[in-house]
């Protein structure tokens, strides 16, 4: 079963400089018990995508087209606010990027974890016991005492584990993680990723995992979505994307990953040019101004080309892999 099916989703923000289309025609699916990664440069619309799913877009933003189907039954873009709120924290929960600021500084950790369970019908003691149990699961030492402590008494890594514990406490069907490890150092990042994977398997939820870090995506995810300027340019199985990227942007993005450089390089490769102004999207392919493979037909909006089953790229030249072209 598909836990989350997003199709044709477009999101617009009204700004002083005009309407900004932050997402355009975004489609993808999150299958049951799978971890789907989302990669893309800063500003490509990753957080907007999450907020659209959660129904938490800023006041100046709205969904202008498309739908978000949750567990095959509920259409989130038209769901009334009360039912939407009932899903949040219960069936869909979220871990945000900033572990330092994600917990309320004046409420104890236990209190916050108890508050989250307010719909469960459990007694206060049961809620506290559940909170302790979750803290133990994320390996917070001395969990019985930890529930009475306040966020500032924990380290960054611990806070992020507490945030994960809180998110998984209600055993949601979908966990959304917006760059949950970006603020952590490398060793903590690995440990947190392993923990997340372990808990995901135990609970059996799906995860939509957003990250800048390609290494983490490769390690953790089953499927990957590559986003550029508010569009999904390529998506597919993690192995397909990493071994055989077809969209020139995805290709460049992988080339730019420092971890994938062979040998010592003096300069890290970059993608020339800048993200287009989302208030005035160019006609045709969004990546065309920066693309070294651009052709005449790229001035028309490219179709989504199926490279292999489950592997899609929105590019006119996607059928020909770059390496093959270079060899020709």
């Amino acid at each position, binding site marked *: 079963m598909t836990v989350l099916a997003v199709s044709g989703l477009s999101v617009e923000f009204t700004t002083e400089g005009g309407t900004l289309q932050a997402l355009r025609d975004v489609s993808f699916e999150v299958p049951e018990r799978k971890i789907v990664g989302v990669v893309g440069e800063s500003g490509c619309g990753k957080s907007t995508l999450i907020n659209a799913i*959660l129904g*938490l877009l800023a006041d100046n933003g709205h969904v202008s087209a498309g739908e978000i189907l949750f567990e095959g039954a509920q259409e989130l873009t038209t769901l009334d606010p009360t039912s939407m*709120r*009932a*899903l*949040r*924290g*219960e069936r869909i*929960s*979220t871990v*945000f990027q*900033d572990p330092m*600021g*994600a*917990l*309320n*500084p*004046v*409420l*104890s950790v236990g209190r916050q974890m108890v*508050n*989250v369970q*307010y*719909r469960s019908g459990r007694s206060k003691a049961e809620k506290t016991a559940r909170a302790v149990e979750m803290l133990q699961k994320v390996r917070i030492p001395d969990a019985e005492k930890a529930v009475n402590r*306040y966020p*500032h*008494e924990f380290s960054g890594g611990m806070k992020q584990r507490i*945030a994960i514990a*809180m998110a998984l406490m209600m055993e949601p069907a979908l966990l959304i993680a917006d760059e949950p490890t970006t603020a952590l150092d490398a060793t903590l990042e690995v440990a947190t990723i392993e923990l997340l994977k372990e808990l995901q398997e135990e609970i059996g939820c799906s995860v939509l995992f957003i990250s800048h870090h390609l290494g983490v995506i490769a390690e953790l995810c089953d499927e990957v979505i590559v986003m550029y300027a508010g569009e999904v340019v390529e998506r597919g199985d993690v192995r397909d994307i990493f071994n055989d990227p077809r969209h020139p942007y995805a290709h460049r993005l992988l080339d730019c990953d420092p971890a994938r450089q062979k040998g010592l390089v003096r300069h890290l490769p970059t993608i020339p040019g800048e993200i287009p102004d989302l208030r005035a999207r160019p006609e045709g392919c969004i990546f065309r101004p920066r693309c070294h493979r651009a052709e005449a037909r790229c001035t028309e909006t490219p179709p989504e080309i199926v490279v292999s089953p489950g592997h899609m790229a929105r590019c006119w030249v996607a059928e020909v892999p770059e390496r093959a072209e270079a060899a020709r």
Partner: protein
Amino acid sequence: MLNYAIKRLGLAVVIVSVAMTLLFSMIYLIPGDPASVALGPRATPEMVAALRARMGLDQPVWVQFWNFYSGAWTGDLGIEVLSNRPVLTVVMEQLPFTLALIAGGITWSVALGIPLGCMAAVRRGSFADRLVGVLSVAVIAVPSFVVAIYALLIFAVALQWLPAIGAGEPGDLGDQLTHLILPSLAVGLGWVGYIARMVRASMLEVLEASHIRTARAFGLPERQITYRYALSIAILPTVTLLGIGIGQMLSSAVFAEIVFARPGIGKLVYDAILTRNYPLVTGAVLVTTVLFVVINVIADLIIGALDPRVRSGF
């Protein structure tokens, strides 16, 4: 906690010492001899000399200062010359009236200012928000004695809803409270504006914080988010502001006590200045300085109770 107490106590000693030095120099520099003023024009030079000796005015300045300084720390603020009673006793008799007035002023400002500021922040940009904004600035701009006079004219004289003068029958709590309503409104009204502005600004800031987004992402009820998750943080600067603002409230209390002919420290100081009853002036001002310090400690303790981050720093 021990660290905090020591720091606070040290600061209190410094503040009170500075206040004492200023007061002493002021009284010493002002022309006119307190003893001859106290005794009136028909006193003989012998009588004046005797009183000067009793008040210690015949001693060198530094001895006078030392007597004043060391006496004050033990609660000996001298003798009030007109009634021949200890200054501290006279001041302490009046203190409860002023404390009640200030407590009333704080109650008005908190009870109106916090909900108004909260509502303005939650409904930012709405008509209600703008109305609260305009009214806040208006009540901040109006001096408290003007509020006092208008409150008196409207509610006591024209409508006759509330009593005009005095502090009420001693022992009759209800009567005392009705006598407190108008003067405390005069003291607190400007603060309704300050607090509404302050709470609105800090609420807007806190509502943007990522932990509020987390709370929303967990589907918590909006009411709980506003009051439990946001307001409990947004309130902190207001508590500090109130602690510091006590000084200003004390000076509004002077006007309110005069306009409403209420007993209290303000009225006491006012009368004492008119009669050049200097020991009483110094004593009353010193007691209010100590009051200021104490109220700021209380404000700190309240913040400590509300904010665990501050608490662990105590």
